[in-house]
């Protein structure tokens, strides 16, 4: 599913943020991605959702060497990946509903199905009363849930979530992780970057730990330090 072979990454001409990363994730697996602030978790996810090129090494996604793919092929690949950004990246002038409907529209779904489908999911994450609200009028936790709904709306093959519970309380956080586990059961490979040790403990999944630009694999329940 995902394979990194001695991958390095830098921003512009800065220092290497990631150094010599090598790992492999099986299809249908569920991993937490941890590490101190600034360790490169978001950067690693950026490589995975194809928003950034590695400065060296080989990235294989869906069994394809991504450096060998054409632009249209990359587009098709990207549509199979759902992303929850750390800073949400909602479109401010679109309603909650339109924001979440974006991936369905890009996939060419029918309008009547879109509305039904989207409003059901938004009700499930507790935003049934805010279908027409614009993101700037939502609370922090509500915006985060919109971002999550958008990432999962079209059942991606790969779900990447960057700190998806930083702005919600434990009850909602648990509910959202149950949503991710449900998706995982249906076949989605999941990687969640998070600082929330309580959640990591409650949901027993293996962990990828980033520190000093290097990646360690830890079995479920193990602590990095």
């Amino acid at each position, binding site marked *: 599913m995902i394979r990194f072979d001695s991958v390095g990454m830098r921003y512009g001409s800065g220092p290497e943020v990631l150094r010599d990363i090598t790992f492999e994730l099986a299809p249908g697996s569920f991993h937490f991605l941890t590490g101190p602030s600034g360790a490169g978790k978001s950067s690693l996810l950026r490589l995975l*959702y*194809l*928003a*950034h*090129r590695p400065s060296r090494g080989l990235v294989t996604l869906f069994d394809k060497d991504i450096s060998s793919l054409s*632009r*249209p092929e*990359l*587009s*098709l*690949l*990207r*549509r*199979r*990946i759902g*992303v929850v950004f750390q800073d949400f*990246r909602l*479109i*401010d*002038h*679109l309603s909650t509903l*339109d924001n979440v409907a*974006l*991936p369905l*529209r*890009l996939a060419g779904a029918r309008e009547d199905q879109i509305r039904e489908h989207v409003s059901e999911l938004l009700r499930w994450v507790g935003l049934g009363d805010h279908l027409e609200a614009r993101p700037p009028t939502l609370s922090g936790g509500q915006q985060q849930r919109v971002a999550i709904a958008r990432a999962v709306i079209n059942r991606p093959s790969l779900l990447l979530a960057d700190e998806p519970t930083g702005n919600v309380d434990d009850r909602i956080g648990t509910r959202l992780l149950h949503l991710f586990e449900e998706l995982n059961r249906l076949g989605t490979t999941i990687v969640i970057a998070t600082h929330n040790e309580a959640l990591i403990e409650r949901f027993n999944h293996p962990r990828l730990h980033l520190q000093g630009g290097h990646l360690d694999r830890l079995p479920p329940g193990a602590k990095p330090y």
Partner: protein
Amino acid sequence: MLKIHYDLPLHRDSASRFLPWITGLMVFLGVMSLAFALVLGNAASSWSQALGSSLTVQILPLAPGKPGQDERVRQALDLLRETPGVSAARALPKSESEKLVSPWLGSNASLSDLPLPTLVDVRADGTSLNVALLRQRLDAEIPGSVLDDHGNWLGEVSRAAVTVQTLAFGALALIALTAILAVIFAVRAGLQLNRSTVELLHIMGASDRYIARQFQRSAAGNASRGGLAGLVLAVLALFAAQRIVGPQSGLPIRLALPLTDCLWLLLVPLAATFFAALTARLTVLATLKRLP
């Protein structure tokens, strides 16, 4: 109004509020300056037609023994008719000569006794007649002929009209260029704010062409709305100007434009819309090219 189909309602963002205004203003400017140039152009060509037509050649009576008057008039007519820029030449009957001379002598003089000059009326078209050269040839070939170009006003005024026209069209070209540049900058500035949306759509797997089309449509919609408003405003302003500098003011410039010229004015908002859409497309594609 133009109704454009949007897949994504991108046209509602705050940057879009700015584009119609700038486009409206620029289309207003463009239409006004184009109309101004066309009016001056029409005025200039009608002046030069009206003015360029009225040269007179006088064939003076010579002392007896020299070539006869009629003979020399015929020669002059031949010479005139083969001169480039002369559209017609006609000898006036004697009665007209008498009428022209009478004020100079008072009505009491017995004109039939006097050896009167024959007048040849020359119609020239526009500015293509080289008056100095014609005068030289007449002096050389037909003795006793005098070319009267009515104080040289015709040439000077029609040349002035042409200069004004040239300047006006030059100014128009600059204004049009500036207006289009302004629309281009407005579109680029708007897209700069939407950079994150472009990136987001890209990461979500939208193809470059799809993303470009979304922004292109949005820009075209905004520009056409602004452009239409600008056109309406400009037409109203032109009507107002017509009332002020209208025919009742007795001025030699008519602000009315023929229908074909009015169609040119329609091109201005279309050009603005086209350039807005093109800029949006190219800017988005350039942004996307930098993404992996």
